[in-house]
């Protein structure tokens, strides 16, 4: 991304961010030295996150740098049809209502650390647990890869190429690894708070600057009425199907993100969790809504951009706004620092959950159940470092099918939803049906994505989910579970 204002001021801000994050990690470490002996302390911050920190860690984890950089170009190209980005973020909280209350209670009761542990507890099936772990690790790895690429591009853009892509990735990855290693979930959540505030400040300044400099929504509407009225129009048939699919896919898909679920376990109390969700329910207006307006203003500010050119929209608008005066100049430098911070904050959350699944669910459950917590933690941390090294190599030499690998993230992750959610409520859910549903859903979603087959405009992940759900429900009705198994399930759910 070309930024006219970037350069040394960008380097200064990035160095400052890096140092603050390291400082947070160090302070957390010095205050809680015992966290390296306990999975609970390290991965969940001792289950003691209060409303503000919990809210910001949910916020910074859910809204990544892509929300700021990637959403305005989509709004620019699609017009008001992309307004769907606001309600789909609200749908994530609606989806939480389906399972978070019960999962929080059970998480506390059984001292769950990762979502995979719930599968193990509920189904007691190695097949289901390992498949769920693989799906989650795949999605998390994929998500992490995206963030690494974004960090590199962001850093090189903000510093006008002074810091090359690769150095940017390495610099922030090392910082992230150090503070993550030192303070675990606490460092991650505290840095998320700082990063979330920087991001919010930056996008509001860009909005104000854009309105002053380019004119607000009415000016943009005049332009659209004259040159592209379809961007103002009501979405047509396929547009409505796409809208609906996004509401469901993103709502459920983002709600079952393993790193988001882990934050449910990290809440200090039910009241804390409820309040954080309640605040999150309004955040789409202040983030997705604001960046949507910026994209719409862009239609008038930089008309006629091709798809590739429009991807640079936020950089172009920020450059123009930064040229207005010194306040906006520094606000825009901060915005891009905030964007990078948002990417890092998403990446660190993902990495922490990735490590926890390896250390607790794979190593601690199947490979070496007798290991001490300290050893399990060490394995998780090392696995995290190895994963990041491999992903950096992939980011360095991206394979040709990278795009399709990216796309597959939501499609596959969503396949854990029926087992996760139905398992919380339905005692008669049959293990074999759950496993068959998950496997079939995964295969269907992957194949359909690779051959780009989306009947009726509905995303392949949703087709996979529908088939998965049907197999789960019908299979459980046909293969009735034994009385013993049903009683056992009743006891586990215990409500």
């Amino acid at each position, binding site marked *: 991304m070309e930024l006219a204002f970037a350069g040394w001021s960008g380097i200064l801000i990035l160095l400052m961010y890096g140092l603050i994050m390291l400082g947070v990690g160090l302070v957390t470490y010095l205050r809680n030295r015992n966290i390296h002996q306990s999975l609970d302390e390290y991965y969940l911050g001792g289950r003691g996150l209060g409303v503000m920190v919990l809210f910001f860690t949910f916020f910074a984890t859910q809204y990544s740098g892509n929300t700021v950089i990637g959403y305005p170009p989509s709004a620019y190209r699609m017009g*008001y049809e992309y*307004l769907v980005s*606001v*309600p789909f973020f*609200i749908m994530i*909280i*609606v989806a939480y*209502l*389906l*399972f978070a*209350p*019960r999962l*929080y*209670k059970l998480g*506390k009761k059984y001292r769950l650390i990762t979502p995979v542990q719930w599968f193990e507890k509920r189904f007691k099936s190695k097949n289901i647990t390992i498949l769920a772990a693989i799906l989650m690790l795949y999605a998390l790895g994929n998500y992490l890869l995206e963030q690494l690429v974004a960090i590199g591009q962001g850093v090189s853009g903000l510093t006008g190429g002074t810091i090359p892509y690769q150095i940017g990735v390495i610099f922030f990855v090392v910082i992230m690894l150090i503070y993550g290693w030192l303070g675990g979930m606490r460092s991650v959540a505290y840095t998320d708070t700082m990063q979330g505030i920087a991001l919010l400040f930056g996008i509001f300044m860009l909005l104000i600057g854009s309105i002053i400099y380019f004119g*607000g*929504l*009415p*000016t*943009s*509407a*005049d332009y659209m*009425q004259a040159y592209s*009225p379809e961007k*103002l*129009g*009501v*979405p047509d048939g396929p*547009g*409505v199907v796409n*809208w*609906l699919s996004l*509401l469901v896919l993103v709502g459920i898909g983002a709600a079952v993100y393993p790193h988001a679920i882990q934050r449910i376990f990290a809440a200090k*109390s*039910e*009241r804390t969790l*409820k*309040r954080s*969700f*309640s605040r999150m*329910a*309004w955040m*789409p*207006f202040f983030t997705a809504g604001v960046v949507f307006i910026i994209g719409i203003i862009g239609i008038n500010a930089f008309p006629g951009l091709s798809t590739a050119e429009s991807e640079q929209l936020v950089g172009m608008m920020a450059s123009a706004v930064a040229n207005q005066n010194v306040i906006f100049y520094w606000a825009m430098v901060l915005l891009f620092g905030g964007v990078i911070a948002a990417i890092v904050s998403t990446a660190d959350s993902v990495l922490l959950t990735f490590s926890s699944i390896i250390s607790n669910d794979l190593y601690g459950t199947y490979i070496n159940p007798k290991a001490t917590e300290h050893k399990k933690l060490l394995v998780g941390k090392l696995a995290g470092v190895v994963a990041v090294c491999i992903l950096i190599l992939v980011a360095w030499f991206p394979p040709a099918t990278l795009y399709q690998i990216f796309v597959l993230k939501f499609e596959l992750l969503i396949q854990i939803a029926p087992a996760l959610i139905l398992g919380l*409520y339905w005692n008669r859910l049959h293990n074999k049906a759950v496993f068959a549903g998950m496997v079939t859903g995964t295969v269907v979603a992957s194949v359909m994505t690779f051959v780009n087959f989306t009947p009726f405009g509905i995303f392949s992940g949703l087709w996979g989910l529908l088939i998965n759900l049907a197999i789960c429900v019908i299979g459980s009705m046909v293969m009735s579970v034994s009385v013993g198994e049903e009683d056992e399930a009743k006891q586990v759910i215990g*409500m």
Partner: protein
Amino acid sequence: MNQTRKEPIKNGKLWIVFGVLFAMITPWYFPESFGEILIYGIPLWAVIIIIGSMLLSAFLSYVLKYHWMLEEEKEEAEQKGAK
């Protein structure tokens, strides 16, 4: 202790309201003309979607506050006990 235990998923009425709001935030019911009427530069249909989204957020906040109560009383009793 269990008298006030509430779980949103078990309350069908809430989900009827969610269903209505979900229908409201999906643009299937607007006539074409709603794309031509502008309110402060925003097409009328989008204004209705925004209002619907705000209602959804408001209803969500209400449900979170008053219809989810599984552990709260117990936790607060424990906290008081600890003090």
